[in-house]
Each structure stands twice: as C-alpha cells, then as structure tokens.
C-alpha cells in the first residue's frame, strides 16, 4: 500500500509541474504517435512440433508539448503473443500479454541538456498450461516503479552524439506465484507440523523482488558514416522472500541478491546502399542463490547456481533496395553467436545426474528480414530465422538444450 501511495504522489507532482508549465504556454497541444507491429508466425523445431501463432505490439504516445519545449509523455505499450501450443523446446507461452504504462515529464534545461522523470507500471498476463485462465497465470507479474533520465545532447560537428544516464527503480511481484509450502501450509499443519516449523514461514513469495538499474549510453561518430554506440547497464535485484540453501539443504538466513552487468557496443558504417553493422556484448549475472538436490550423489549442493556469463557477437548487413528509394524498402541479414557459461552449474547426463564439467551453452542464429513500405506509415515485413542451440548439458527432460528452431513470420508495421 505504501508503494501505491508513493506512486500516487509522484504522479501528482508530475501533473502539477505539467500544469504549471502549461499555464503560460502560447503553443501547446497533443502530438499523438503510434507504432504497431503485427505478425503471424510459424515456428518449427527440428524433430519436434510445428506451431503457428501471432505476435504483436502496439505503442501509443499521445505526447503533450508545452510551449516551453517541455513534454508530457504518457506511453502505453501492449505486447502480446499467442501460440497454439506450448513448445517446451523453445516457446513457453501459449499466451502472453504485457500492458505497460509510463507517464513522464521531459524538461529541457538548455540547448544541450534535458531530463526526464517517469512513473512506470506494467502488468503481464501469461498462460502456459491448459488450465490457467487469463488472470491466474502462474507467471503473471506486475511492476511499479519510476525512472529518471538525464541526457547530454552532445554533438560531433552537426551530428548528434548524445550521452545519457538512466536510473530506474521498480518492484516486481508475481501475484499468483506462491510457494507450495505456503499454499499447503494449512494442510501441512495438520499432517506434518514439523515441516511447517522447519520451513518457518519463509519463501512464501519466492519470486518477488525489488530491482534497480543504472544505464549509461554514449554515441560517438568515427567517420562521416561510421557511428558507434556503447552502453553499460547494471541491475540489482533483492528478493523479498527467497533464501539460498546451505550445503546440507537447509534454508539459510540470507536473502537472495543478484547483480547483472551488461556491456554492449555496436558500430555501423554506411557504404552506398549498404550498412554494415557489428554488435558485441558481454553479460555477467552474479547471484548468491544456491540449490540443493539430495537426489544427486555428487554435487548435491550447487552454490551460485544462477550465476552465469555470456559473450555475444552479431554482424549484420542492411541493404536499401534500389527500388522506390523514397520509401526505403530494405533487407537485413544478421548472424548471431553467443556463448554462455555457468561457473557453478555442473552439466548433467541424460538422466539428470551432475557430472564434473560445468554447463556451457552456445547459440547461433541467422536472421533474414525485409521491409517494404507501401506508404510512409504502413510497411509490410517478412522474415525468417534459424536458431541452433547447443549445450553440453544433456538432461533435457523438461527443457531442450540442444535444438534447431526455424521461424517464418510476416506482417505489417504501422507508424503514425
């Protein structure tokens, strides 16, 4: 409840500031913009099922510009997907809908400096099993939070080379995800009170956490048509009710705390009708959470189970087709490669027993995609991709680690 009160307070401040800024404005008004991306898709897993589905997103921003140059930015985003069947190899969701709302206020402090504050919220509906209904998805979640962004509109000659810093705080809760111990507490109290005592009321809501993120972004021009961008993100998550296990399997007294660091960089260069790009990134997730699996003879205790790192690289080439140039039809081919390692997670044999080596995953992909705008606001798009995942973890009873996924999709994008 306190969180909601704080959010309400933030919203009131934003609206008040907006109203004051608007009072003396001679030039103001709504500037609605909209983007939509609607696609149908067919996905096939080699030696597995072929599924059809649809994905779509709609972004709406009825901005309100003030004469002072400031802007009120209410943003609504719908992001949804629907597949006719869960394919555990690659696609978990039969249905997922994310509704996100942001109400921001952007103020310009001068020619080269701007700032934005925003209150944000989101609710995600998921449906994974045939018995879940729209509101009761186990992995439904809701976010409440806020963000502050400061941008330095730096320029390199006449080209923008902005620097920005963003700080976000949020509270994520999974309203339908409660531990089985919590759901069955009444039953356990009657049948096994010792268990209730041992669990001690902990881990009732083990998925909920509070998060914070800090992001730094910078753009630099390396030549007339060579643009580089780099960003660093660090996120921290403090779980409200989740506790690592001890090396004997007991619930410890520490709470789970994770950190994720991401460093990414990209460069793109234009050569006539072509743009050649290269993205690269590295990611490190640190976690103090551990698991204990008494079924394992060896390595029953795995500290830092959720700790992992990854590096990725993705070259791409985009071709502006030499037809109807004004509309910019184009095709892009990109290739991706990623290696992910788990320094504390042992690989498993096909029966699930932990072996001595550590789990290592590889992902490779090829993606071909094209856009053909009919008019400025409407484009047709179609694409196909192949993704190959490989892992030295051979335990695949519930989750495929080694598979080939083929996806073809087509649809339209709308920009208004």
């Amino acid at each position, binding site marked *: 409840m306190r969180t909601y009160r704080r959010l309400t307070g933030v919203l009131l401040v934003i609206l008040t500031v907006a109203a004051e800024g608007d009072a003396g404005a*001679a*030039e103001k008004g709504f500037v609605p*913009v909209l983007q939509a991306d609607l696609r149908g898709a067919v996905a096939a897993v080699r030696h597995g099922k072929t599924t059809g589905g649809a994905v779509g997103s709609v972004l709406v921003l009825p*901005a309100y510009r003030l*004469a002072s*140059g400031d802007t009120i930015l209410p943003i609504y985003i719908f992001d949804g997907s629907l597949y006719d069947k869960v394919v555990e190899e690659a696609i*978990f969701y039969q249905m997922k809908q994310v509704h*996100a709302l942001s109400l921001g206020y*952007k103020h310009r402090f001068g020619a080269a400096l701007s700032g934005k504050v*925003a209150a*944000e919220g989101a609710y995600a509906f998921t449906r994974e*099993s045939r018995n879940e209904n729209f509101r009761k998805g186990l992995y439904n979640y809701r976010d409440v939070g806020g963000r502050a962004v400061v941008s330095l509109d730096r*320029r390199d000659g006449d*080209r*923008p080379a902005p620097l920005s810093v*963003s700080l976000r705080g949020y509270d994520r809760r999974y309203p339908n995800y409660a531990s089985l111990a919590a759901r*069955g507490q009444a039953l356990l109290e009657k*049948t*096994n009170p*010792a*268990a209730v005592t041992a669990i001690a009321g902990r881990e009732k809501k083990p998925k909920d956490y509070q*998060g914070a*993120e800090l992001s730094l972004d910078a753009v630099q021009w390396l030549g007339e048509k060579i643009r580089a*961008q780099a960003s660093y993100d660090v*996120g921290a998550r403090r779980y409200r009710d989740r506790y690592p296990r001890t090396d004997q399997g007991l619930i410890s007294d520490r709470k789970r705390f994770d950190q*994720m660091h*991401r460093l990414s960089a*990209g460069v*793109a*260069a234009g050569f006539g009708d072509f*743009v050649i790009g290269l*993205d*690269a*990134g590295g990611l490190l997730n640190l976690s103090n959470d551990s698991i204990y*699996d*008494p079924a*394992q*003879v*060896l390595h*029953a205790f795995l500290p830092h189970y959720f700790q992992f790192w990854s590096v990725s690289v*993705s070259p791409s080439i985009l071709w*502006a087709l030499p037809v109807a*140039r*004004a*509309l*910019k039809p*184009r095709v892009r081919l*990109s290739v*991706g*490669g990623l290696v992910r390692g788990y320094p504390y997670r042992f690989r498993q044999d096909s*029966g699930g*027993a932990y072996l*001595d080596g550590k789990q290592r995953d590889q*992902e490779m*992909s090829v993606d071909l995609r094209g856009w053909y705008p009919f*008019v*400025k606001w409407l484009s047709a*798009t179609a694409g196909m991709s192949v993704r190959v995942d490989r892992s030295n973890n051979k335990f695949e*009873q519930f*989750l495929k680690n080694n598979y080939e996924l083929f996806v073809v999709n087509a649809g339209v994008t709308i920009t208004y």
Partner: protein
Amino acid sequence: MRTCLVLLAMAGMGSSWAAAAAPLAEVSRVSGLVRVSHGARGAPAQATAGMPLVEADRVACLGGKVELRFTDGHLLRLVENASLEIMAPVQGKKKGVFTRLLAGKVRALVAKFSGNEVFVIQSSYAVASVKGTDLLFDGRSATVRDEGDAMEHSVELLSPQGRLLALIGEGETAGLRPDGSIDQPHPADSAVLEEMERQFDVAPPAGGTTSGTTGEGGQGAGTKAAEAAAGAGESGEGESAEDENADLYAEMSDFASSDELVNYYDWMERTSDLQLGKVILDRHGNRVEMEQYNYLLSTNTIEYLVLNFRDGGPSAGLTAMTTDLTFNTDLPADRFDDVRRGLSISFRDTSVYPVYWLTQEYRSIMNQDGEQLTEDVYLSDPVEIWSAPTRAFSGGTWSYGMGGAQVGWGQAFEYARTITENWSYLPLEHYLVTEYGDLNAGWYLGANPVPDYPAGCVNFQGIPNDATPTAWFLNGATTSGNMWWMPPMYLHDPDFNSTGIPEDGVVDGRPALGNAWFGLGVRETAALATDVGTFRTFERTWYGDPASPDTPTLTISSFIVDDNGNEQDPGVYLGSAGSGWEWDSLLGQMNLEVEYEWFDPYVGVTWLADLLVEPNMFRDSSVMQAGPGFGEPGGAPGLGF
C-alpha cells in the same frame, strides 16, 4: 490535397505585423553556429532549442543546422549558409505558415493541413504552398519526396504573381532555369533525394539493435540507429530519421526496450525452473510444480519433504511425500546430509564396523485430499561375524522388516517380516522396491507382493536360496520403472567412508559415480510427474525365466483414471518394441531397458515408453558382463529386473 506554393518574386506578398508578439514557431533542434535576429537589423543571438520565433525573426545558419517547429508540427530544416524569415500567418486572404527563404536551401516536412490553410515558402524567385509533404526548396526549384500518396503530396510552384508554373508530384522535381524558363516536372535525380537525406537528416536518439535472434536481452548497441544515420534507416519500424516526431518514437522505443534486461533475466529464471523440474508441464498440458525441503527432524533423523502441485487432470491439487531417515546415532549438524548421501556410495567392507546406519525409514505419501499412505521399515544393527580362519571379520548379518504399513487410501495393511542376510556377500543386498505414482491416489493399486523365491531355487546370483523370503515389493502404479532402493545402509567410519565423501573416482576400490538410490529429489519426482497420466495402464508379468515356472516373476500393474477419477479401459498393449540389457560400466551394474508400445485411450494415441530399470545391485562386472540377460532364453533367472 496538400499544396505548396513557390512564388517567383516577393511582390504581392504584403506583410502583416499585427501578430508580432505571438510565437509562430520555435527552434526545435540546433547544431553549430545558428543566429536568430528580429528583422534585418535585429541583434543576432545564438539559436537554442526551445527558442520561440515570432514574425520577422530571421534564422541564419552560419555554420550548422537548425530545425524549426511550427504550430501543428510543421518542420523546416536549414543547413549551412541558409537563412529564412518568419512571416505573418495571414497573407491577404490566405492563412497558414509563411516563410521567406533568403538564402540557401530548406527542407520542409509539412504536416497535413485542414481547410484552405497553406504552407508557403517564398523566395526571390518562387513560392511553394503545401498541405503536407516533404520537399526540398532552394529558392528556384523544388523536389518532392515520394511518400506513396500522390493525391496528397503534390507541390504547386507559383510565380510571384501567383501564376501556376508547375505542379510537382511525388518523386519529381521542377523549377526555374537561370534563363527564366521552366524546368517542367520530371523524376527527381536520386542524388538529390539522397542529398535530402544526408544533408538534412538528424539522426534519432540512440536505440537498441534489432539485429539477430540471438542475444542477451537486446544485447548489442547502436546498429539500428547507426543504420538510420548512415542512410538506410528503419522507417518501417517507425524510427525514420526524417520523421518530425522522431524524438517521440524514440521515447516509445526506449520505454519498450527498457525491460530487455529484466525480461532476459526472468527468462533465464524461467528456464532454470524448467531445468530443475520445479515448474513444468506434463504431457497433457497440466502444470506441475515441485518443491523440496530437507531438514533435521531430530538429532538423528532427517526429513525430506517433496511437495507436488498439479493444476488439472485427475490428480489436481497438492500432494506430498515425506521420508524420515533415522540413524543409529546423532548426526553431525553441519554434515547430516553428507552422511545420508554417503550411504548411497558406501560399499561393504566387512573389516570395518559401520559408524552410521539406518535404523528406520518412514515414508508417507499424502494425496490431495489429505489421505496418507505410510510405510515404516525398521533395520537392525549390523552384526559382525568373526572369521577364525582368516582372523578377521568376514561379514555380518543385517536384518530389516516392515513394522506396518498403510498401503491403500483408507486401507490398513499389516506386513511384518524380518529378513536376515549375511551381508558379507556383496551381491546379496536386499532391497525394498516401491514404485510411487505422482503421489496420486488414483494410481495406487495397493500392495502387490512378489512371490518369494521358492525354496531350493537358484536366485539371480546363482546362489542357492533358502526358504526365507528374500524380496518383496510394494507396487504403486507408476511409469518408468522408478525404483526406490535400500542399498547398504551404513557407513564405515566417521569420515563417511575411508576417503570421505568422494567427488569422483574410486571408493573402496569401486567406482563411485552413479545415480542416487535415494530418489526423492525434485528431478526424480518430476520425472514421474511428466510421465504420469499416460503410461499408467498396463499389466505385465515379467518372467524371470519363462522356461522355469519356479523363477520369480514381476508383476507391474496399473490402470487409467479419467478426469473424473474413474477407472477406464486400461488400453491396448501392443507389444514390446524392444528390450535389452545395458551394462553401466560406471555404476558397475546391469540395467534393463524395455520399450513398450501402447495405445493410450486417455490421449488416443499410440506411443512408445521406455522402461528403464536400474537394479543398482550388481556391482561386480565380472558377474554380469557375460552371458545373455535376465529374462532371455538361457539368461540368469531371478528377480533381475
């Protein structure tokens, strides 16, 4: 229809200063040296973003670029050496946006007008009036971008007197030649269009990349924005560099992508839940959740609790399985489960008396209605036997039996038997075999004792059996032969075997790697959970040796329960699709793998199921590697599944 007027002279365009104080536009973007002055003699000031512009204001790009935003969102972009004057919004009978291009080039991105309003760019030579298009005007000629809407996007090129000189369509250019003749509309040179993009574009704010399907939460930076800036943008995704609302699109994209890291993190969590078997789906699409806890119930008893929740099907609800293992002495509080794990990798060493051994194993299974099945097994202390000839302990005896069990929901079943065995014989480990379903009452058949070895028969190790019953098992209908074993239940020394808890390699001269006998892990239980509901109907008698009626048999029975909990036709057994023995060199044991083919009326499909039985009893490869397998003609008889 959008109309653009380009007047060839300034005559006839009288100015009105009536609204001099009202801002008509503002500087929306600026880079480099751009001056703004009021009128021809006003003091110039550096343009800044947000600077309001009124009638008679002049904007001069001395060394940069500037973008002016008019009411209703129209944009004018000027590049170096261009200058422009803001004019009154009413000119004679017309109203709208009126500007005068004093020098250089201007690019106009004109939003759609309503009524008779016009957007006019006037020069010394021409005027353009537009109702919404994208054009480049250098004072003499105009070029119109092709936006795929010829009806709306034409530009009228007019003389100063208002005479129509040319109607310029999309993708066309027209203007005045230096000799004053008219260059009629014709397709625009692509170089000119490219110049519009290159000279007048302002790259949108940085955004994430969309390249590839592989990545870590949108990992990758700058490609998308760089593509736009480099001239081959992303208009199809609404991030067109020339779009007058590019900053707003960028705001949306930023917000949409702001959850990339969080979503990627949650995705990894979700996959971990699957990999661990914590939250999975069974083959019917029902959700299955698993949780597991273990703790010290007392100083010498460990309790393992597995909770299972299914959100649909005949076994929907919360069920639980509890196992209490009681040892002969107090367990070290900081290593209590190491002792238990040590049991599974302990091998008999008759020269050393055990330190830890189980004295009781209590297990209960609770269904979703709170009913419980229980079994309670008591184990004696090991008794050593001194061998006089060798002057060493040659072995010992060990007995176990069941004190009582409730083996059916609501049923009482008393079973009391003590089995005593000389535990110096390695292969003669007795075992308790129980199969549990997914903790589902509907699948439980009750006790199903196997016929004991008949007196005088030769058991599977070729050792003459006496009349003492040597084996029994409790058969709860389950799926893939998940066996629950009681291996040697003692440890040899306080260090949990002479080498401690081994990480790998050899214990007591034998391989230490292997599957856990103690199948209470989430993984094991979840393995049952994914199979249940399908492979739960068959009745099969497995003969140890079909040629000999005296050999023991194994009967596995099950039945189908529909969504209403009623037993249904058990289906049609189509036969064995194959079977074979598999020697596991790591474990030093023989596994039996049987592949059944079934028609399952529950799902109406025919499917194959593997029944993999890991006896975990044959530890001596020299015994089992040779010869045909159990149940095969000529194979060793006995309960060797």
